[in-house]
């Protein structure tokens, strides 16, 4: 079956800087926004811009991710011939190996792409929170006659040192890459969204695969090699919210952004819905005496205490006399009575014993609470209140 464009979604990264959140979980599967997992935003973009087929490349701790994606039903990607395929590393007659880099993951799946004999390949990653119409970018790519189009975001000049920066001519042709430059010449940051002409990409992938000292990475190897050969590479300007929730701090911030009136649209934009699996739990019960404000709360939560500026996933209970503030509570967490939590992230099914106080100051990184470390906290500070400020 021939398709004009095949989408390759990179979802195998470790997400090291998310610490405990990605201890046993691929970063794209990290819960987000009271209901979703991070990858839902990308998969919903695929549906909303009608990009299929989609190959999802997984590797690190994929169990939850695989269960979540399944056959792609929540995103209408359970299609007969051109739906979603999970592409994990595999063995063959002559060995086989792990994906050794982003480019290597694509190289190892050249067969998958060639099945559809496409003109273009869209490469995206499952790590970012944003709404984007990839189809518009594809039209732009076709019009410009580029070999590669890279989606870019204007970032504040003082933050350019955190991003991969593209230096372009006035017509957005790229002449230079700078990874996290201290003195940037441009403020156009790459979003990790690329469209390649498949023929060109395949050539470069095969060549890169034969190089022993290559990291087989798009940003490090493939794109610089193309630039060196003077390939037509263009930037495509994206406007809107885009966030790489790469650290615990930015993960927390992205949640607090949801209380911003303008950004609330991220979850409730009727024109660009975000899809996910839906909870089977009953509606949430807000009991007598509870106080809930500036919060997002999902099904099955039972609230007896106070919840402020927090995001509660499904099935969370909050006991009497408890105050949860500026926190993110993952599914099924049980927060006992007279607990005080501020700026923490409570992981799935963790029980916070009655009387616990953990308040994290704004100058400290939010604390991730797991069943193991909550016990350590208890022993370390038996009877005392924990204040990390």
């Amino acid at each position, binding site marked *: 079956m021939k398709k004009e464009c095949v989408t390759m979604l990179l979802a195998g990264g470790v997400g090291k800087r998310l610490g405990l959140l990605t201890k046993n979980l691929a970063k794209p599967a990290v819960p987000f926004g009271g209901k979703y997992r991070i990858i839902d935003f990308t998969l919903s973009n695929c549906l909303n811009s009608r990009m299929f087929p989609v190959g999802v490349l997984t590797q690190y701790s994929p169990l939850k991710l695989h269960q979540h994606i399944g056959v792609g039903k929540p995103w209408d990607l359970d299609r007969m011939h051109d739906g979603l395929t999970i592409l994990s590393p595999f063995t063959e007659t002559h060995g086989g190996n792990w994906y050794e880099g982003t480019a290597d993951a694509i190289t190892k799946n050249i067969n998958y792409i060639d099945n559809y004999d496409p003109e273009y390949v869209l490469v995206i990653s499952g790590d970012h929170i944003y709404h984007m119409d990839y189809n518009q970018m594809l039209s732009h790519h076709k019009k410009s006659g580029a070999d590669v189009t890279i989606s870019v975001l204007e970032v504040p000049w003082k933050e350019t040192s955190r991003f991969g920066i593209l230096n372009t001519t006035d017509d957005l042709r790229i002449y230079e890459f700078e990874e996290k430059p201290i003195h940037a010449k441009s403020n156009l940051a790459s979003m990790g969204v690329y469209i390649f002409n498949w023929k060109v990409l395949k050539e470069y992938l095969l060549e890169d695969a034969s190089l022993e000292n290559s990291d087989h990475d798009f940003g490090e190897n493939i794109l610089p090699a193309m630039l060196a050969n003077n390939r037509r590479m263009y930037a495509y300007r994206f406007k809107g919210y885009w966030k790489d929730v790469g650290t615990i701090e930015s993960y927390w911030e992205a949640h607090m952004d949801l209380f911003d009136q303008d950004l609330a649209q991220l979850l409730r934009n009727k024109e660009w819905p975000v899809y996910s699996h*839906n909870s089977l739990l009953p509606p949430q019960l807000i009991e*007598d005496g509870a106080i809930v404000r500036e919060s997002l709360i999902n099904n099955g939560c039972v609230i007896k205490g106070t919840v402020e500026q927090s995001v509660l996933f499904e099935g969370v209970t909050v006991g009497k006399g408890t105050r949860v503030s500026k926190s993110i509570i993952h599914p099924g967490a049980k927060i006992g009575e007279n607990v005080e939590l501020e700026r923490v992230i409570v992981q799935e099914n963790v029980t916070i014993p009655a009387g616990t106080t953990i308040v994290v100051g704004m100058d400290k990184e939010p604390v991730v609470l797991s069943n193991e470390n909550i016990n350590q906290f208890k022993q370390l500070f038996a009877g005392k209140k924990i204040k990390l400020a």
Partner: protein
Amino acid sequence: MKTMMGLINLGQEHDYLNELTYFRTGASVPFAGRYRLIDFTLSNMTRSNIYEVAIFAGNKYRSLMDHLGTGADWDLDKRHGGLFILPPDWNDPTDISKGDLRYFHNNFDYFERGKSEYVLISGSQFITSTVYDDMFQFHLDRDADVTLLTTSYPDPLPEHRSCIKVKMDEKSWVTCLCNEQENQPVFSGVYLLSKQLLLELVKECIAHHKENLFKDGIMANLERLKIQAYQYDGYSSVVNSIESYYRHNMALLEASSYQELFFSGNNVLTKVNNQPPTNYHDTAKVSKSLIATGCEIDGEVTNSILFHNVKVAQGATVKNSIIMQHCQIEEGVHLENVILDKNVTVTKNQALKGTKEQPFVVAKRRTI
């Protein structure tokens, strides 16, 4: 292994919920913030290893069909078994059957094709969350012809008046089925018998120009059939009037009832819709309320139930009310003892008030 097939018989249920059943059958009336009444019995069936369920749809079943779809949300869209919605569409000139027997007569195929030897029959008005496995085992152990699911309520309520009461001996053999008003076990509308017996009774009733399978086939044959009562003690309610509908919705605002109905066993399954978590804004004031997803709350909500995607504007108060999906409550509105059906908009500064016994009901898609 002996197995059951399911039948939800709506053929003899009336449209008992006034405005709420103007446009839909009682079985598809929204309940408890996210469900439809039929979800309870349907979920109970699919949780009891029943893989094929037929629904005799009486009338106004468009919303029911929309809700059930292919049955995927109940895991009924399978190669083996499935969901069979059987509306009253028949044109057999030789058909002499009447009442709910017409459904059986015209859908004999469903029973004949099904592989299960037993049939569990239910209506949609008995609300509980359970599995029927124990009842099935009980039926087999007692070697009964028919087993009725019965339950007892400490205080008789108005909605029990029209329910069939069950008298039984010490071995729970049923001795009398009647409508006496004294308090005694109530028949839930759920019963179980072998497919063979069911079809015999159906044929016999039709041959004698009868009109109701349960009354004419089972109650009238009390002497001949061995009928057991299986007493069920879990949380349950009977919804057969606006008053009982309102009261049993409100009962779920008590944490104990909520826990018993929703967290004592399996999840109640329903059609899922894609809604974000509910957003409580700065000025929101919510207490003792059951709230579905996708709502945006700026105002005050007390002792109420909000279905998905309801907006309550700043300065609005909602008290003792049931607000169904996609309703908009604008600024300064005051609602008390009100039931708003789907897609109702209440414009600025309006006040609507009913009583607990007679809540003020607004039919769907109105703007007030």
